[in-house]
C-alpha cells in the first residue's frame, strides 16, 4: 500500500492548518463576497491595490477544509500581481498550486476564483466611479 492515503495533499493541509492572510483589510480597495451559507461555503476576499498592483489581500471563509485552503492560497497568489495578471488566475491554477484537490472539492477552487474576480470587479467599479 502507498505510504499516505489522504483526502487532501500536504500542501492543502499546510494551508488549512496555517491559513495565510486571515482577516479583513480596513478601507479595502475591493471586496468580493461569494457563496451562500445555505450551500455551506462563503468567502470574503479583501484587496488593497497600489499603482494597479495588488499589494495586500485578506480573507474570511466559512466552509470546508478545501474552501479555507483555497482562500489562503489565492490570497498568496494575488499579492504582487497586477490587476490584469490577477484576473488570469484560474481555479485550476489555485488547485494546482495546492498540489491538486479531490474531484468533489473542485467547486471550492471555483469559489476562490469567483471571490477574487468579485473583489477585482469591485475595485474596478470603484475606480471607474472615481475617474468619472
Amino acid at each position, binding site marked *: 500500500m502507498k505510504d499516505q492515503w489522504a*483526502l*487532501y495533499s500536504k500542501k492543502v493541509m499546510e494551508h*488549512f*492548518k496555517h*491559513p495565510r492572510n*486571515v482577516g479583513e483589510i480596513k478601507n479595502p480597495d475591493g471586496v468580493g*463576497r461569494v457563496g451562500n*451559507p*445555505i*450551500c*455551506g*461555503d*462563503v468567502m*470574503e476576499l479583501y484587496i488593497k491595490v497600489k499603482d494597479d498592483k495588488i499589494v495586500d489581500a485578506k480573507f*474570511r*471563509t*466559512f*466552509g*470546508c*477544509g*478545501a*474552501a*479555507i485552503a483555497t482562500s489562503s492560497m489565492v490570497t498568496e497568489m494575488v499579492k504582487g500581481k497586477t490587476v490584469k495578471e490577477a484576473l488570469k488566475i484560474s481555479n485550476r491554477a489555485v488547485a494546482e498550486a495546492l498540489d491538486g484537490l479531490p*474531484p*468533489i*472539492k473542485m*467547486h471550492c477552487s471555483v469559489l476562490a476564483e469567483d471571490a477574487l474576480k468579485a473583489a477585482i470587479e469591485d475595485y474596478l467599479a470603484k475606480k471607474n466611479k472615481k475617474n468619472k
Partner: protein
Amino acid sequence: MKKIYLDYAATTPCHPEVIEEMLPFFNQIYGNPSSVYQLAQKAKGAIEEAREKVARLLNAEPEEIIFTGGGTEADNMAIKGVAFANKKRGNHIITSRIEHHAVINTCKWLEKQGLKVTYISVDKFGVIDLDELRKSLTDKTILISIMHANNEVGTIEPIQEIAKIARERGIYFHTDAVQTAGKVPIDVKESGIDMLSLSGHKLYGPKGIGALYVRKGVKISPLIHGGHHERNRRAGTENVPGIVGLGKACEIASKEMANEEKRLRELRDKLYKGLNERIDDIILNGHPHRRLPGILNICVKYVEGESMLINLDLEGICVSSGSACTSGSLEPSHVLLAMGVPAEVAHGSLRFSLGRNTTQKDIDRVISVLPSIVEKLRAISPFGKEAKSKEYRG
C-alpha cells in the same frame, strides 16, 4: 498519538473474537456450502449456527433470517422485494424523510418505475408524525418502511405503534435497524415487525455482510437471482467467513448490550455537558432521551462541519459530520433539514458516536480539544463576529 475513534455509527472495528471465529473459514473450512462433501457441509453447518445466533438477537426463527451483502442490500431487498411481489395488491409505499439513503434512493427508483411513495415528516426531535402516517394510508398501500433509529441523530422511532397501524390494515412493516441491532433490545415477535435490516459492520462484525429478517408468510421476491442459496431468497455463494463473523458479533451483542447501553449513555451525556459548558452557540440534535445511547449530534454555529472534522483528525479524533462537504453535494443533511434545522446551521453539524473502546479519557480529550478548534475556525469565518449577535440568520 492514540487514535480516538468516535465514529462507531459509521462503522466499527471487528471484535477480536469475531476475527478469530472467521479465520478458519478463509483457508481451512473453505468448501462451498452447496457442495456435498464434509469440508463443504461443515461450512454449511457454520452458516446455520450463525443464523441461529442472529435470530436469537431479534427473537426470530432461524428460517426467517436471510443473509445479504450488507445493510443497504437488505433495505433494497425488503422494499423492492415487496414492491415486485405485491403488484396486484397495490403500488403505494410509505416511508419517512429521515431514512438512510439505502431506503430513500430505493424508493425514488421505485417511483421511476411507476410506484407511489409518501415521505412522512418528523418533528424537531426527528420523531415520525404518526398522524400524518395514518392519514397517508390508502387502499393501495403495501408497505411502510420506517427506520428503528436514525443514523445521524440517533432518535428512536415508535416502531411498535407503526407496526400496529400496519398490521391492522394488513400492510407490511419493514424497519431499518442497522443502527439499533445489537445496541438496544429488539423483539420482532413482540413488536410486530414484518421485515428488519441489519448490517455486520455496525455491530463489531465484518463489512460486506448483513441480514434481512423476513417474518414467515411475508411475500417478497428476491433482489438477486441465481442458485438455490438462502432457500431461494438470495442467490450467490455464501460469504461464509462474513456470515460466521456476523453470527459471532450478534452473540456477543446479545450478552453485552445491557451493560454497554448504560455505559455509553453516561459517557455521551458527559461529552455533551462538557462541550456545552465550553462552547457557545451549540445545539443538540435528536430526541433528548428517546435516542441511541452512543450518539451525540450537535450543530456548532458559524463554522462548517468538515473543517472541524479535519482539525479533530489532526488531533487523532475521528468523528463524522452531516455536512454537505463530506459527500461533495451542496445539500446539508436531509435529516437535519427535515427536523427544521436551518441549512446554514446544519452545515455545522458534528456526530460523535461512542462504542466498545470509548473511555472517559477519550471524552475528556474531546472536551479539551474541540473548544479551541471552534474558536480558531470562528476567527476565520465571516460569521464569527456574529456569534452571540442577533444578526446571524441561523
